């Protein structure tokens, strides 16, 4: 029999965050062109970039991605929004207008050298501009083209119906099953309809790249963010089909594992979980409830209400059921466990200095993901991409800039570099 904890010892070493920077990257050699704004498209490319893809983020010169101006409480830090930063790590930022012919030409040249395009414009927009999938595959038959949208590239709503995260939360049925029975449907306070779909888009891109290895062919990938949320609603659909009824809002008790749920303690909130018969029996013993069934939620609420979160967690771990604190951003920021895992990490950025971020969630022992640098102002990497990659001369770039085909940041908070200049 192997010695106790041997996998843990292995894991402690194999996943050491101090070693991550020197390890290879899983998606090295994959180049991604991003033509996207706000969250759905940028997050898709961000996830690929975290694992080593080279992402070239194409923004409209001057103002760029409109997400730059989404700032919590109107707050900008060093002229950039804290909400823009986590969506745009490890990217090369170029300002390029796809409307003029020279802009299309530059884009097509970039696409010839790329593996993936991610866009989230209204359905058909890239095609109208002459740089859609059908045009790109003429130049690069291996291109994997992810068209992210609200309602899909075809079908009754494909003619330009716009969508945000909460559109997907609303129309999918997600919000109708979230919240409390005597209250209105609840919108998740974070942009879950964008991120869930972005991750699904990134997954399909990796699958398509795997297929391309055998066939040499790229393909079009059409993903609706509402359909991504629909796929995530577990037993909602077979329940509707079998009973003809809507699944209800159950508040904070999980109807699949009652009384598992979120409960108020003296000093915060705790999640109590009893997933199987063994855990339910332990919980019943601690609560001293009678009968064979699961303890009532009221009994758990009474038990938790008299205790602190730490007490409930300690009792659960000692007695054989499960519990965990309900944590927020502050707890994450200060959590030694998340720091030790690189799930909350610090990056030293040449422009902004130290920035803390969520690091990649799945940990790969041999080819781990990582945050290498932060988002940058519009057009920050124009010279690197147009000059070094496409081979344009300084004169050519100046000419294109004068014609407003390429460009840099507008003099606005969100778009421009920090006032104090390069961080020391």
């Amino acid at each position, binding site marked *: *029999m*192997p010695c106790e904890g041997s996998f843990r010892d292995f894991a*402690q070493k194999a996943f050491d965050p101090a070693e991550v920077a020197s390890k290879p990257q899983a998606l090295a050699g994959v180049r991604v062109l991003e033509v996207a704004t706000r969250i759905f498209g940028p997050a898709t490319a961000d996830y690929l970039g975290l694992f080593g893809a080279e992402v070239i983020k194409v923004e409209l010169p001057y103002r760029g991605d*409109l997400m730059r*101006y989404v700032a*919590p*409480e109107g*707050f900008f830090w060093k002229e950039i929004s*804290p*909400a823009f930063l*986590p969506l745009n790590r490890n990217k090369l930022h170029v300002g390029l207008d796809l409307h003029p012919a020279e802009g299309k030409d530059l884009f097509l040249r970039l696409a010839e050298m790329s593996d993936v395009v991610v866009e989230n414009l209204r*359905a*058909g927009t890239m095609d109208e501009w002459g740089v859609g999938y*059908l045009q790109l595959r003429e130049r690069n038959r291996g291109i994997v083209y992810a068209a992210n949208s609200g309602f899909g*590239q*075809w079908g009754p709503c494909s003619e330009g119906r716009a969508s*945000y995260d*909460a559109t997907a*939360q*609303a129309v999918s049925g997600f919000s*109708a*099953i979230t919240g409390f029975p005597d209250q209105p449907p*609840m*919108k998740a*306070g974070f*942009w*879950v309809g964008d991120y869930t779909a972005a991750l699904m888009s990134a997954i*399909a891109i990796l699958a398509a790249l795997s297929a391309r290895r055998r066939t040499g062919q790229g393909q079009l990938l*059409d993903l609706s963010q509402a*359909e991504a949320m*629909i796929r995530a609603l*577990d037993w*909602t*659909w*077979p*329940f509707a*089909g079998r009973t003809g009824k809507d699944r209800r*809002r159950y508040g904070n008790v*999980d109807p*699949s594992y009652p009384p598992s749920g*979120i409960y108020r303690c003296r000093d915060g909130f705790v*999640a109590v979980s009893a997933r199987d018969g063994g*855990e339910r029996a332990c919980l019943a013993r601690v609560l001293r409830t009678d009968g064979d069934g699961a303890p009532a939620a009221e009994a758990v609420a009474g038990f938790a209400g008299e205790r602190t979160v730490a007490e409930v967690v300690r009792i659960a771990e000692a007695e054989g059921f*499960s519990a*965990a604190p*309900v*944590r*927020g*951003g502050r707890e*994450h*920021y200060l959590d*030694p*466990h998340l720091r030790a*895992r690189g799930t909350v990490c610090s990056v030293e950025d040449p422009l902004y200095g130290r*920035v803390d*971020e*969520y690091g990649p*969630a799945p*940990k790969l022992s041999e*080819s781990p993901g990582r945050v290498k640098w932060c988002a940058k102002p519009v057009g920050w990497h124009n010279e690197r991409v147009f000059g070094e990659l496409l081979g344009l001369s300084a004169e050519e770039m100046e000419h294109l800039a004068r014609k407003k085909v390429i460009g840099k940041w507008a003099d606005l908070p969100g778009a421009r570099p920090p006032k104090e200049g390069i961080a020391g």
Partner: protein
Amino acid sequence: MSGFTEWAGRATHPESAAGKPEALSGIRVLEYCPGHFGGMVAASILGEFGADVVKVEPPGGDPLRRVAPEGVLVEGTGLPFLSEARNRRYVTLSAGHPEGRALLRRLAAASDVVVTSEAPDRLEENGAGYLSLRRERPDLVYLYLSAYGSFGPDAARPVLDSDILCQALSGGPFIVGEPETGESPPAPHQAPTRLGNWHGWFSQGLWGAFGVLAALRFREETGKGQVVDMAGAEAMMMFADYNITWMHTAGKARGRLGNYDPAVFPYTYIRCRDGYTFIAAYNDEAFESLMQIIGRPELARDPRFSNPAGRVRIENERALLAVLEEWSGKLSADEILAAVEEHTSKKSGPGAAVVTGRVNRPLETLSERNWQERGCFLRPAIPGYGELSLAAPPWKMSGTPPRWKSGCRPPGADNRDVYAGTLGMPEEEYVRLGALGAI
């Protein structure tokens, strides 16, 4: 309809998927995750893209089969299991039996990917731990799912991974739900609120599948396998917006704001004649459009509302919500959509960014034409389980489209196919192991 729309509809319609190649054909996945929905999701996603998924259950079946919200069981199997039970072969073995353990090891060693939520030391005892398997299969990709992950100070905490724990730790519920109003005691709904579906487990499975695909790419390049360590707590954390950057740059943690948002407004649900609908118009140009649509153009110049920072002050959000509901209360969600589309179809750029959509109950979603025509729902007749409404794979792809191929089967239904067919076990051994209770 443009040429592209027509082409895309033809090339990516799910009905045209049959007969096309699959992206992950040739990849075998062993799923050993009793009681764990996140593991099922990870394996399903790989299966939808064409991987050959073999699900190992204990004799008598996965305990998840008996999880039955609202008491609904179909042939002894609950709806959560049925919703995710797709594209698999179902085998049973007893890990408590020495020959069952040997079989688990043979199955793992014959796979490209192992997906498991079992404790690592128990797996090592059962012969299917990574450290011993990798000697035989250095190219194995091994996805380990748990609440806290396999390393770090909390890794040894004795918890059984579940959706509610993953949600609670992720930071998601912390910023979902109504804030307290100062009354004592606060109402039950003024609390961090769980997402109604198993979004914690679902995100864990999705990130797990992503990690596996990234690891498979690395394997294609180098021949090397590896461990993918996927903490359920961290899956939805990746979706929790700018929690960390806001703490770092402003020292602020996000709280609960009900259906409001600290960064954008209007971006909320509003009451309408037939329920609720979503309305968004958060840049200045779109806000001006929305004020024209509701017949209050002067409000675009009201100093409280004339810039994004003013609009996200909570007192201004409340005042604007009242104005919006005065208009929307008389209209149905469809009429609001028509009014918005009428106005925005004449505009382009930031001024067209007024967005709306009805807050659908599930039956309303099921009946919407767009999802029906796009093949978003399936209603297959599954042998032994009857007709079931299921969500189809959401991706429409022109080259290697994912697809739903088969539904739930009873535990062990594919024992002979896998043990005799795939592993090449002689008939007498198969019969002997059955008699021993190992399978």
